[in-house]
C-alpha cells in the first residue's frame, strides 16, 4: 500500500494514499469531532464539525472530505477551529431541543458530548424550533423529527449501505425532515442500522424506550444466536435483564453492522413458554419433577430399551442453535454411554447438502465461507438465494461489491432485496437454477470458453460433457424461461470475467435448490479452472458448522434423519431431541408426528415447551445462549465465545451439563465435567478439519422436480426465509414479532385474478399431504403459477404440505389455492 506521511498536531503519522484527514487522524488515535461521517459511507461534508486548519490553506478544511497529501501539516484543535465548531453547535442547538432529560440517547449522544466540549452557554440567534409529532407508529423504530440535526447518516446508511432507501430528506431548508416518502408509517426491513448511526436521539429503538439511562447498563459483547454470520451484538443488561442490542464499530466480524435479528431478537429468551423445571409424563400429563427424578427416569427407561432392543434402537437429534460443547456432549453421550451412531440434525435437509456437494466435488471435509470473498470477485453469480435475507450482514458485502463496481447477477424467480440491488436479474422459473447452470456450462464448453488444461484433467470431465448435451440454450430456455440470448451472454460474460464467485444458501426450509444445484455450481467453478473457494455456500444457523464439525451426524452405519423420522419401518424405539422442534420445523409434519408417537421413549431437552416437547415423555429444561458459556462456529469457520451474561431461567442447566449428569445417572462417566474440559477435547477434533488434500471431480447434476404440478395441483409452493426471522426461534421474540408475526402467502396479481383471491383475505392451500389456511398478499414480486410462503411460524403449519429431500431432486410442492 502507498503510504503518505503527514503531521497532525505536531505528530508525524502515516496513512494510506487517498485517505481523508479524518480517516488518517482516527486511524492514528487522534479524534476529530464529526456528526455526519461514517466509515461505511462516502464523505458527505454536511456537519462542518470536523473542520481543521491545514498549513498553507486559506480558511478551514473539512477533515472528512479533504484528502491527505505528502507533508501536509494539520492542526485539529486551534482557537480558530474551536470558534468555528462553537458557532456550528450554536446553529444546531438553535433547532435541536434541549430535552436531554427525557431523551434515551442522553449519555451517549454525540451532540451532547460536543456541546459539552465546544459549545456555548448562550446562543446569539433565535429561531423557532420544529414542532413535529413523535412517530411511534412503526414497529421497533421510533422517530423524533424535532431532535434531528439532518446529518443524513440514516438516509445514507439505509440507501447506500443497506440497499433499501426507506427514508429520505423531505422538503428543503428549515422545514426539511427525515421521513418515508408520504408521511406514511415506516415500513422497511427494520434492521435498525439508522438507529446506530443517529448521532442524536432522533431515531431510537422503540423496544428500549424509557427502559433505562445508558449509564445504568452493562454492555456485553455476544455472538448473535441467529444465522451463520456470527456477528457480535452488544447487549445491554440492566438488573439481570437484556434490554437492548446494538452494533459497535470495530467489534466483531460484522464491524458494527447488524440486522434486525441481531439487534432485536435477543428477547426470545423471555418468551412465556420457557421451561423452568424438568417434567415427566404421568398419567398422560407432563408434571413437574426434580432433576434427580427426571434423570433417573430417563436413565432407567433408556437402559431398559437398550437392553431389550439394542443401542441401535436409540436415536438423537442435535441442534444448530446449541453450542459446540452441547453438541459434542450429545454425540459423546450417544456414542459412548448409549452406544448408537444414530445421530443427526435438521442440517440434514440444509447444510448437509452443501457439505455433500463440497465433498463429492472437491474432496473437502470443511469449507467455510470467506467473509470478504464477495469483495474479491468482479463477477458474482447468485443462484436462487436471497443472501441479504438468509445471511443479512454477509449479504451487505454483495451489495458493497456491486457498489464498488463488481457485476452482481442474481438468478431468482422472486424480486428479492438482493435482486433489487443487483446489476442483472435473471428471472427464472423457481427451482430451475440447476438447469441454468448446466445451460451456461454447455455454452462455455461448446464455445471453448473453459479452462481446457485444468478442466480436462479433472475426473469425470467427459461424463460432465455428455450430461450437458440436453442442456442446449433452447432447452434451458424452455425450462427456465430465460431467453437463449441471455443464457449465452451470461455464460460468455461470466467465463470472461477477471475473477468470479458463485454463491447460494443452503437453508433447510428452502425448496428451490437441492444437492444438484450445488453440484452444478461446483462443476461451473471447476470447469473455469477457478479455486473451490469461489463457490460460497454458508452454513445456515449460528452453530450449524460447529454442530456438524462436533460430530452430530452418523459417522459409520448410523441412521440419517430421513431414516430416523420418515422410514416406514419403526425401528427406533427411543429418540433424544436436543434444541429442535421437528413437529414444526421439519417437512411433512404428519409423518414426523406419526414417528414420534410411535416412540417408547421421547426425551426433549429444550429451552421452550415446544410442540415437540408437549409430546415428550420427559422434558428437560436447558439454558439459553445468554445463560451459559460455550462456543459457536460461524459459517466463516470462526470459533467464537458465548458467555453467561444473565442468570439461568428457573432450574435450567446448560445442555452439556445435562449429559454430564445423565451419563452419571446411567453409571457411565464421560470424563468431562466443565466447558473448559469439553472445549479442550473439541478443539483437538476441530483442529483436524480442512487439512486433507483436495481431490476434484465433476458430478453431473440433472434438473428434476421430485413432484410435478398437475391439473389438480397447478401451482408450485416455494418455501422461503424472510429477513426478519430465522428458523422458528425468532418467532418467539416479541420484538421481531412486532415486525412480522404471521405467515402469509404471496401470489402474483394474475393468479389472484384467476383464482378469485382478494388481497389480505384467507386462502386454502392444499397439497396432496394436507391443507392449511394462510392470508394472501398479492405481490408484483412473485411470478405466475407460484406461491411464496415464509416458514417461520409454528401456528401456520406450512410443513403440513412439504416433504423432505436430501438428494438431487428439487422438492417444490405442487398445490392448489382456493378462497377460504
Amino acid at each position, binding site marked *: 500500500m502507498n503510504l503518505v506521511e503527514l503531521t497532525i498536531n505536531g505528530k508525524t503519522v502515516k496513512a494510506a494514499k487517498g485517505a481523508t484527514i479524518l480517516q488518517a487522524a482516527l486511524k492514528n488515535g487522534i479524534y476529530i469531532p464529526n456528526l455526519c461521517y461514517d466509515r461505511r459511507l462516502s464523505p458527505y461534508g454536511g456537519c462542518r464539525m470536523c473542520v481543521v486548519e491545514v498549513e498553507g490553506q486559506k480558511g478551514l478544511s473539512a477533515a472528512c472530505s479533504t*484528502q491527505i497529501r505528502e507533508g501536509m501539516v494539520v492542526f485539529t484543535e486551534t482557537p480558530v477551529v474551536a470558534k468555528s465548531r462553537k458557532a456550528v453547535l450554536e446553529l444546531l442547538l438553535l433547532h435541536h431541543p434541549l430535552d436531554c432529560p427525557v431523551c434515551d440517547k442522553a449519555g451517549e449522544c454525540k451532540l451532547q458530548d460536543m456541546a459539552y466540549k465546544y459549545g456555548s452557554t448562550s446562543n446569539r440567534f433565535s429561531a423557532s424550533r420544529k414542532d413535529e409529532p413523535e412517530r411511534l407508529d412503526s414497529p421497533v423504530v421510533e422517530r423524533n423529527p424535532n431532535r434531528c440535526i439532518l446529518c443524513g447518516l440514516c438516509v445514507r446508511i439505509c440507501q447506500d449501505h443497506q440497499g433499501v*432507501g426507506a427514508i*429520505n*430528506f423531505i422538503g428543503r431548508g428549515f422545514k426539511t425532515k427525515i421521513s418515508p416518502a408520504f408521511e406514511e408509517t415506516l415500513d422497511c426491513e427494520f434492521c435498525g442500522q439508522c438507529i446506530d448511526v443517529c448521532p442524536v436521539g432522533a431515531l431510537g429503538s422503540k423496544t428500549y424506550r424509557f427502559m433505562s439511562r445508558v449509564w445504568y447498563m452493562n454492555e456485553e459483547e455476544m455472538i448473535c444466536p441467529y444465522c451463520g454470520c456470527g456477528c457480535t451484538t452488544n447487549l445491554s443488561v440492566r438488573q439481570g435483564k437484556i434490554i437492548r442490542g446494538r452494533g459497535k464499530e470495530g467489534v466483531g466480524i460484522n464491524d458494527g453492522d447488524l440486522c434486525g435479528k441481531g439487534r432485536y431478537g435477543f428477547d426470545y429468551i423471555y418468551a412465556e413458554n420457557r421451561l423452568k423445571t424438568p417434567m415427566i409424563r404421568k398419567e398422560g400429563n407432563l408434571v413437574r419433577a426434580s432433576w434427580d427424578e427426571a434423570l433417573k427416569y430417563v436413565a432407567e427407561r433408556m437402559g431398559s430399551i437398550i437392553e431389550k432392543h439394542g443401542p441401535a434402537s436409540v436415536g438423537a437429534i442435535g441442534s444448530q442453535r446449541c453450542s459446540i460443547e452441547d453438541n459434542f456432549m450429545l454425540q459423546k453421550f450417544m456414542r459412548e454411554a448409549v452406544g448408537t451412531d444414530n445421530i443427526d440434525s435438521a442440517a440434514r435437509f440444509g447444510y448437509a447438502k452443501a457439505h455433500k456437494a463440497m465433498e463429492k466435488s472437491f474432496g473437502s471435509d470443511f469449507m467455510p465461507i470467506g467473509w470478504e470473498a464477495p469483495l474479491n470477485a468482479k463477477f458474482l453469480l447468485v443462484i436462487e438465494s436471497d443472501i441479504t435475507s438468509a445471511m443479512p450482514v454477509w449479504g451487505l458485502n454483495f451489495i458493497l461489491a456491486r457498489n*464498488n*463496481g463488481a457485476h452482481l447477477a442474481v438468478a431468482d424467480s422472486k424480486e428479492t432485496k438482493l435482486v433489487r440491488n443487483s446489476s442483472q436479474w435473471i428471472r427464472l422459473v423457481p427451482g430451475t437454477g440447476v438447469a441454468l447452470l448446466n445451460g451456461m456450462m454447455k455454452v462455455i464448453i461448446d464455445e471453448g470458453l473453459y479452462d481446457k488444461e485444468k478442466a480436462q484433467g479433472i475426473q469425470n470431465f467427459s461424463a460432465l460433457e455428455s450430461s450437458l448435451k440436453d442442456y442446449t440454450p433452447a432447452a434451458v430456455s424452455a425450462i427456465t424461461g430465460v431467453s437463449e440470448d441471455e443464457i449465452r451472454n451470461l455464460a460468455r460474460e461470466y467465463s470472461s470475467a477477471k475473477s468470479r464467485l458463485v454463491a447460494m444458501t443452503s437453508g433447510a426450509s428452502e425448496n428451490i435448490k437441492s444437492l444438484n444445484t450445488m453440484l452444478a455450481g461446483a462443476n461451473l467453478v471447476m470447469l473455469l479452472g477457478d479455486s473451490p473457494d469461489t463457490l460460497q455456500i454458508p452454513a445456515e444457523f449460528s452453530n450449524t458448522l460447529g454442530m456438524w464439525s462436533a460430530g452430530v451426524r452418523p459417522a459409520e452405519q448410523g441412521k440419517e434423519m430421513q431414516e430416523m423420522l420418515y422410514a416406514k419401518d419403526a425401528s427406533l424405539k427411543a429418540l433424544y431431541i436436543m434444541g429442535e422442534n421437528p413437529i414444526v420445523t421439519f417437512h411433512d409434519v404428519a409423518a414426523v408426528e406419526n414417528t414420534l408417537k410411535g416412540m417408547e421413549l421421547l426425551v426433549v431437552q429444550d429451552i421452550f415447551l415446544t410442540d415437540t416437547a408437549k409430546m415428550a415423555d420427559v422434558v428437560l429444561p436447558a439454558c439459553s445462549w445468554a445463560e451459559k458459556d460455550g462456543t459457536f462456529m460461524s459459517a466463516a469457520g470462526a470459533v467464537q465465545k458465548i458467555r453467561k451474561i444473565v442468570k439461568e431461567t428457573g432450574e435450567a442447566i446448560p445442555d452439556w451439563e445435562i449429559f454430564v449428569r445423565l451419563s452419571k445417572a446411567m453409571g457411565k462417566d464421560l470424563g468431562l465435567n466443565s466447558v473448559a474440559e469439553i472445549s479442550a477435547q473439541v478443539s483437538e477434533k476441530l483442529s483436524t478439519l480442512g487439512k486433507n488434500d483436495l481431490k476434484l471431480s465433476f458430478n453431473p447434476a440433472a434438473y428434476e422436480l421430485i413432484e410435478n404440478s398437475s391439473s389438480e395441483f397447478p401451482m408450485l409452493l416455494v418455501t422461503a426465509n424472510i429477513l426478519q426471522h430465522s428458523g422458528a426461534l425468532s418467532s418467539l421474540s416479541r420484538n421481531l414479532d412486532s415486525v412480522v408475526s404471521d405467515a402469509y402467502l404471496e401470489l402474483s396479481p394474475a393468479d389472484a385474478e384467476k383464482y378469485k383471491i382478494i388481497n389480505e383475505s384467507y386462502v386454502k392451500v392444499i397439497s396432496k399431504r394436507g391443507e392449511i389456511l394462510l392470508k394472501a398478499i398479492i405481490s408484483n414480486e412473485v411470478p405466475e403459477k407460484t406461491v411464496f410462503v415464509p416458514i417461520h411460524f409454528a401456528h401456520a403449519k406450512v410443513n403440513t404440505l412439504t416433504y423432505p429431500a436430501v438428494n438431487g431432486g428439487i422438492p417444490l410442492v405442487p398445490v392448489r389455492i382456493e378462497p377460504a
Partner: protein
Amino acid sequence: MIVKQRAYEAKEALLMPALYAAQREHGWMSPEAMKSVARALDLPPATVKGFATFYDMFRKKPVGKHVIQLCTNVTCILSGSEDLLSMLSDKFGIAPNETTTDGRFSLVAMECIGACGTAPAMIVNTDFYENLTKESIFSILENYK
C-alpha cells in the same frame, strides 16, 4: 482504496427529467406522479420525494392552466419586480403560490432565473420574458387564455 467510490449507474441521473415528464402529465407533483416515477425508475419512493421536494420547479400542489413565475431576487427587486408582483396579485386577486378561482393562472414568486442583465424577468409556463414593465407584463399575459 479508503474513500469509497460508488459506481453510479444512470438511475438517479434520470430523476430530474422523469420528474419534469411526470409534472407535465399530472400538472403537479402528486403522490401518484411521484410513485409512478419511482416505479418507472425502480427507485425507492422516498428518494423520489426527496428530490421532488428539494427543487422549487416541482410543484407541491395543483396549479392553474398557466404558471406565472416572476423573479423576486435582488436584481429584479431593484428593477421593480416587487411592484409587478403586487400588481399581479391585485389584478388576479391571489397571493403568491395561489391559483385564480377560474384556474387560469397561478402566481409564483420565483428565485433567481439568471436574467439579472435584463431584469425584471419572468417565466410563464416554459416561455421566458425579460425587461418587463407595468405595461408589457399585462399584454404578455393577454396571450395566455
